[in-house]
């Protein structure tokens, strides 16, 4: 081997070693221990970890429209799809209590603003996100969203009022909030073909609060408004037993029927002897 070739080979090896050493320092960083105290001059790239956030930051509506390239439905569906899986990616599983529900709520509202006809987001919110392990902190967001979604098309989306009322009552333990939503459900147009329990829901919540007067009035209203054609015999039997067994028991435990603060119609209703007799309360 010629001396010049050997010299060139040594130079190449030295350059390679230098570059590998530099790469090691960039990867590891430079730090020394001085009197048992670690002093870092330069932290290496191995300390830079990818940021695996649980809930991504919420873009503005305008940005979402811009990145949709004119097809907002596609963007809605993509982000709706993401809503089901965020936080559970790259082999990690995040418990629902660790999610930022305030951020999630803003995502839900943003997507619902793009397509309020779809049940994609509402379904995931109602049946998945509502299963949080921290209901006191997180369920108010769920209830607010379900109610706001239903407010946009109340007649078609009445089911989500019922879900919001259920979550408010049994997860938030907020009877007032549950009653507020149940009232919206009961106030839906009378010609709407929805189950009769949606009209009675307030009565059950009042019963639970011990407010027999309001519970009785609600049942009376339901019979008066829907009794002639929409209440089946089975439903009528249920209302009879609700009045006779549940409300009467509650009143008897309290002031007693004679002293109870109930309307004359309610009192008359409590005195009927069989379910069929409730028919006389129908409002013609």
């Amino acid at each position, binding site marked *: 081997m010629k001396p010049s070739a050997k010299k060139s080979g040594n130079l190449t090896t030295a350059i390679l070693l230098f570059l590998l050493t530099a790469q090691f320092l960039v990867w590891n960083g430079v730090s020394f221990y001085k009197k048992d105290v670690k002093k870092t001059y330069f932290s290496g790239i191995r300390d830079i970890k990818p940021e695996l956030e649980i809930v991504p930051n919420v873009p503005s509506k*305008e940005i979402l*429209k*811009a990145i949709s*390239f*004119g*097809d*907002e*439905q*596609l963007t809605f*569906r*993509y982000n*709706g*799809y993401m809503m*089901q899986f965020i936080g559970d990616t790259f082999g990690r599983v995040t418990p629902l209590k660790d999610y930022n529900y305030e951020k999630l709520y803003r995502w839900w509202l943003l997507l619902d603003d793009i*397509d309020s*006809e*779809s*049940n*994609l987001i509402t*379904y*995931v919110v109602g*049946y*998945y996100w509502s299963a949080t392990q921290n209901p006191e902190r997180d369920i108010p967001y769920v209830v607010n969203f379900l109610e706001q979604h239903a407010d946009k098309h109340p007649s078609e989306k009445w089911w989500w009022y019922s879900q919001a009322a259920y979550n408010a009552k049994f997860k938030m333990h907020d009877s007032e909030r549950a009653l507020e939503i149940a009232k919206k459900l009961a106030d839906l147009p009378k010609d709407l073909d929805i189950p009769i329990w949606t009209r009675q829901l307030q009565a059950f919540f009042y019963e639970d609060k011990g407010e027999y007067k309001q519970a009785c009035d609600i049942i009376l209203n339901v019979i008066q408004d829907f009794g002639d054609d929409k209440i089946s015999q089975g439903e009528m039997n249920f209302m009879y037993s609700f009045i006779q067994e549940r409300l009467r028991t509650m009143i008897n435990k309290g002031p007693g029927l004679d002293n109870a603060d109930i309307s004359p119609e309610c009192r008359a209703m409590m005195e009927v002897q069989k379910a069929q007799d409730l028919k006389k309360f129908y409002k013609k």
Partner: protein
Amino acid sequence: MLTTIRYVLLTALRDWLFLGILLALFAAGFVSHFMGSTVLVESNEISSSFTAGSSRLVLVIGMIVFVCFHVRRAFENKEIDLMLSRPISRVEFVISYWLGFAVVATIVLGAIGLFIIILYGYNYTGLSFWILTMWLEILIVLAFAVFSSIILKSSVSAVLLCFGFYSISRMIGFFSYVLEKNQSGEMLSFDFISQKIIWVASFLLPRLDIFCQSKWLIYGVDFTTTAWYMPVLQAAIYIPLLITIAAIDFKKKQF
């Protein structure tokens, strides 16, 4: 003219365009269907929306790349010189070239339509309108691709120009919205100048964002709120405009 159209069809077959695009469509449809099947609710809606969106991209990207490289290669291989030696005017040649590409795109779009009908054919009005506007959109894109590959000497530049045109045209509705919301009154400021540029661009570019919306596949077309005639008008204006500019440039070319 028919000979040129046949020539374009043969080159599409030669370049495996149909097979390539159909394979890409099949893959896009498969992935979309798989993703749709993993959601809790409305899986058909998600799958159809993803399939429609990805098919649109496959068709547009595939056709842009095919047209730009095809035209430039025809120039470089002197195929154009050979074709122009026949009794055909240059204007006729540009039109027949665009028509050839349009036939290719229509065949591929027919396959996409069939694919979506088989998988998610539950809203025929929406689907028909989606296919019609997709057809008009691809015809505009093809006219632009023919125009850019004739005026530019590099296929890569032509492809990039087409992608830029397509992206901005699909976003121009959003830009116009922003322009209306934020008007800068300060003359000659950066905001003022950029607003004027966007204003001019919104006049010059077609509103491709009103074409093929995947919501039509799901909810159908509400003809009371959708300006259904706009895509037709846009295509009726832009296709002749782009073909004319391309023909003017082509007529002036020296071989």
